[in-house]
């Protein structure tokens, strides 16, 4: 299937991919400038169709929207303002910029452990208004493994819908012995807490499968052999993680 991943550009542009395909394509997109250019132009073309569906919303919606926004402040920009070239970050390469964004994203009060996990994940997820853009930070085994699992011929998908519209999907490949967790729209963990991942064996025992780099949209390889696992869970744990879950899972995806 990986040979024709370029062919997904159109379906991606109109949001016609499922979560797994979307995650895979976004990883591909990060390293394929031809696809990026094509996707941008196809997205623009697709949105022309919205000219056909224009309808004025009921007047009451305007009042609701304006009342709601007055209670929330806009988020700060992700990066320094554009003319910041002359500042001390003048040598600012693309990689530096990405690292900066990654820090900005992961630096929400998380400890050093988080940063390490984030670094290991090799991707920074920039959630830009619901539109997630994957950027490759460097080629690393985690990323390669995630791609392999998602593209494996025996990849099997298990999904769970969480509170608030978030989703957690696990894709497992028995031949590769690995499972990948894909989350979408998850809230951030409470201050001072982390999301920890678990694999459950046939006896119900939970083994730590690593920490997750925050909420939002993530693609994480679960550490450990998932071949015989019966399910994967996510719990909220104190910073640094725990040896055993100390709370009920906020998500549990059964491999069945």
């Amino acid at each position, binding site marked *: 299937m990986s040979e024709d991943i370029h062919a997904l550009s159109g379906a991606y542009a109109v949001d*016609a991919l499922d979560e797994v395909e979307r995650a895979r394509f976004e990883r591909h997109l990060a390293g394929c400038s031809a696809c990026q250019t094509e996707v941008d132009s196809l997205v623009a073309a697709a949105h*022309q169709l919205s000219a056909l569906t224009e309808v004025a919303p009921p007047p009451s919606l305007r009042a609701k929207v304006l009342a709601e926004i007055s209670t929330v402040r806009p988020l700060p920009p992700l990066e320094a303002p554009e003319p910041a070239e002359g500042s001390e970050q003048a040598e600012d390469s693309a990689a530096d910029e990405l690292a900066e964004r990654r820090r900005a994203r992961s630096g929400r009060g998380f400890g050093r452990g988080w940063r390490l996990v984030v670094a290991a994940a090799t991707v920074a997820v920039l959630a830009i208004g619901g539109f997630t853009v994957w950027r490759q930070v460097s080629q690393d085994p985690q990323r390669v493994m995630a791609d392999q699992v998602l593209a494996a011929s025996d990849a099997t998908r298990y999904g769970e819908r969480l509170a608030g519209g978030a989703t957690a999907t696990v894709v497992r490949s028995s031949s590769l012995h690995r499972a990948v967790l894909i989350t979408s729209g998850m809230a951030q963990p409470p201050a001072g807490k982390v999301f920890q991942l678990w694999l459950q064996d046939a006896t119900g025992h939970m083994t730590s499968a690593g920490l997750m780099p925050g909420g939002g949209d993530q693609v994480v390889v679960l550490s450990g052999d998932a071949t015989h696992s019966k399910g994967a869970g996510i719990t909220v744990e104190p910073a640094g993680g725990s040896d055993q879950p100390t709370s009920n899972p906020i998500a549990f995806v059964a491999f069945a």
Partner: protein
Amino acid sequence: MVPSGDDSSEGPARPVQLEQLLRRAATGDETAFAELYDAVSPRLFGLVRRVVRDPAQSEEVTQEVFLEIWRHSARFDPSKGAAMSWMLTIAHRKAVDRVRSAEAARNRDEGYGASNQDVTHDSTAEAVVERLDAERVHRALETLTPVQRQALEMAYLSGYTHTEVASMLDLPLGTAKTRIRDGLIRLRDTLGVTL
């Protein structure tokens, strides 16, 4: 991403204006945001309404869309595309996410007839505004093959995945995505879409 080809001055707002309004909104300027709302809400609400279909849910989703635009206004990057396109991307993704949740899917199926008629026969002055834009898009769509057009409309306007489109149109697995892509390329080239 208001088409720039025909210079109809009654278009929602010129792209530059939208970008300026977004930039002002990013500083917390609610008046600018209200102006932005007036300029783009028919486009965004109309698209959400078409995808989600249920009127009450469409309003909910549209409200979420505007909240997201407000919160992320400082993160809009004009070098990556037009403001309208950015906002439509947010609206479309949210509408599709909503319609794919199981309950919403059920509501949509049950409510299809009624909501659809609603849209078609709504004759209030604020209903569908036919613009030059719409005519251009209609004409461009006519250059697509029937299958390309159908696949594209089912995906973009109804929020189906390419796999669902394939099974609904009885296409061999894997070919719907090609039809969608070919259709979009034709649309892009016919309309002369620029980023």
